[in-house]
């Protein structure tokens, strides 16, 4: 298997699907000649041309609405929204249009569309450092995924492109440069399954996206102390594969959830509530939740560092749960 970056894995997925199916096209800001803000779409314009790799104005609601309508009309758009923070100006289109189309009209048509966007932070301050995966995961009619590795990114993006319903595909700016093994041959991954990234016996550590790496590091640290941690990467957030978590907790009897976003009302709240309900008799300790500090993200590096959950925070929560 080739070792490639998350960025390259995404690009391969898009390029392969565009080669496979002429209905697939991509639109977004600065994705064509510029190559994409995070360079994911680099080279696609050169290969596929201006009709299939299309720069748009700064008009995110227009972008999503256009992609939705075009999908209804027979194409398969991939809409890139530079940052998940900018999806707020398009959320009406995502939630009240794309996500409602099929049900509200009695199942007459589908909206085969992927919305690719990016979470992340990095001294970008309050309006550019949020993650709203919990909001999108609230919405029936959407599928929401947030892969953490190049392998998952490629397999899930290909699956998302082939899927018949709108998929929020949320990347992370910290991950683009991360490397991992990716098979050369065509493969797809399910959009509704968590993945056990490391098996363990004593504690279930739940994470996704940017939190997978520090969670694995914590598992490694605790392994050195003879504590075996099962690290579950949710990957899919709607549907939310809590069955995998509950099965694990029934074995480990302990659970900690690590989330980059604000703790209150994050995905972790739902997971904790379900685990506490469905594994009530198996839990030996309260479910621990680690989340972002509940402030609008400050710019200053030292403050920002305090806000984002660290390996240390996760480790502390695990110790508290043990």
């Amino acid at each position: 298997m080739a070792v490639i970056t998350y960025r390259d894995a995404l690009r391969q997925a898009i390029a392969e699907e565009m080669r496979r199916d002429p209905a697939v096209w991509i639109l977004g800001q600065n994705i064509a000649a510029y190559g994409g803000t995070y360079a994911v779409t680099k080279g696609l314009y050169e290969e596929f041309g201006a009709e299939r790799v299309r720069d748009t104005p700064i008009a995110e609601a227009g972008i999503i609405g256009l992609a939705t309508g075009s999908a209804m009309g027979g194409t398969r758009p991939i809409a890139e929204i530079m940052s998940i923070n900018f999806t707020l100006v398009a959320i009406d289109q995502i939630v009240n249009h794309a996500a409602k189309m099929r049900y509200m009209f009695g199942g007459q048509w589908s909206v085969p569309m992927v919305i690719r966007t990016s979470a992340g932070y990095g001294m970008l301050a309050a309006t550019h450092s949020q993650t709203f995966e919990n909001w999108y995961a609230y919405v029936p009619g959407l599928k929401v995924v947030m892969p953490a590795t190049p392998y998952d990114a490629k397999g899930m993006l290909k699956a998302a492109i082939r899927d018949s319903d709108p998929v929020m595909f949320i990347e992370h700016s910290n991950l683009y440069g991360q490397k991992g093994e990716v098979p050369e041959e065509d493969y797809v991954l399910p959009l509704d399954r968590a993945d056990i990234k490391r098996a363990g016996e004593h504690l279930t550590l739940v994470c996704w996206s940017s939190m997978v790496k520090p969670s694995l590091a914590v598992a490694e640290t605790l392994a050195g102390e003879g504590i075996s941690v099962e690290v579950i990467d949710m990957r899919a957030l709607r549907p939310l594969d809590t069955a995998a978590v509950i099965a694990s907790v029934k074995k480990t009897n302990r659970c900690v959830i690590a989330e980059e976003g604000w703790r209150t009302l994050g995905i972790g709240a739902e997971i904790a509530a379900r685990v506490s309900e469905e594994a009530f008799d198996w839990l030996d300790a309260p479910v621990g939740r680690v989340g972002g500090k509940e402030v609008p993200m400050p710019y200053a590096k030292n403050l920002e560092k305090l806000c984002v959950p660290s390996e240390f925070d996760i480790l502390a929560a695990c110790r508290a749960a043990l």
Partner: protein
Amino acid sequence: MNRETRRAFYRQMLLIRLFEEKCAELYAGAQIGGFLHLYIGQEAVAVGAIQALTPEDDVVTHYRDHGHALARGLEAGPLMAELCGRETGVCKGRGGSMHLADASRRMWGGYAIVGGHLPVAVGLAHAHQYRKSGGVTMSFFGDASTDIGEFHEAMNFAQLWRLPSVFICENNLYGMGVPIAMNSSVQQIVDKARAYGMPSERVDGMDVEAVEEVVAAAVRHARAGNGPFFIEAMTYRFRGHSMADPELYRDKAEVEEWKRRDPLQTYRARLLKSKVLTSASAEALEQEVLAEVEAAARFALESPFPDPATLFDDIYTP
């Protein structure tokens, strides 16, 4: 314009009028729920405009959508069943009055978020361009919908990408209870199209033939690959914004003035005068349409409610 078309125009407008009078009745009887927005007074716009389309073209509209659905050829029975929330409705009772659609006729729905359907409509036009299908997408919306951002984003995309999109603004002078002078800094909506370099035209929306003529030219323009076209049809709703509207904001005289220009009655008179209709044929037609509407209502009311077991169907594609 041939006699058959003119007769068909009259028939369609009449069908919309009688259908909606029936709707009002069923709403009063609590067979229809939610918000009900009647199109009465504006019939000439939908009928004249949609006439210009082929079955491969698209229609997208807002919540005041009964007229567009009927003009697009959706049957009165399944439409009324939809309004009554029945399984036999065009959307199996899931959509209701504001969300009438029939994919087989490329009638992609009524939408109830003001302006929100316009980027979607532009996207349908994009699909025509992408697939080189030769089709055109027609969208309908009100005067007060041109103040919201999504309208403007859609306009820019359509002109920038030269999409085959025909925008039809039905300017009935009010957005709910607020007159256009208090909503918009310009009083001619066509001025907004000019800001996008989009060709546009104003038309008398109470005259079905005038509408048809202008819209047909717009559709030709779009179909020929020249990009979008914008039409502002001047019209008026004879009823309240919705059934809940106490209607305290409009001058009686203004309403009466517009009612004298009733697109249905004036057209009837015109067809009688030009002998396309006779009194007898007009009355026969009226009886026929009335019977159609009554049959639609019966069909609706005799239809079953959706099966609760199907509640979770259709959220995702199987």
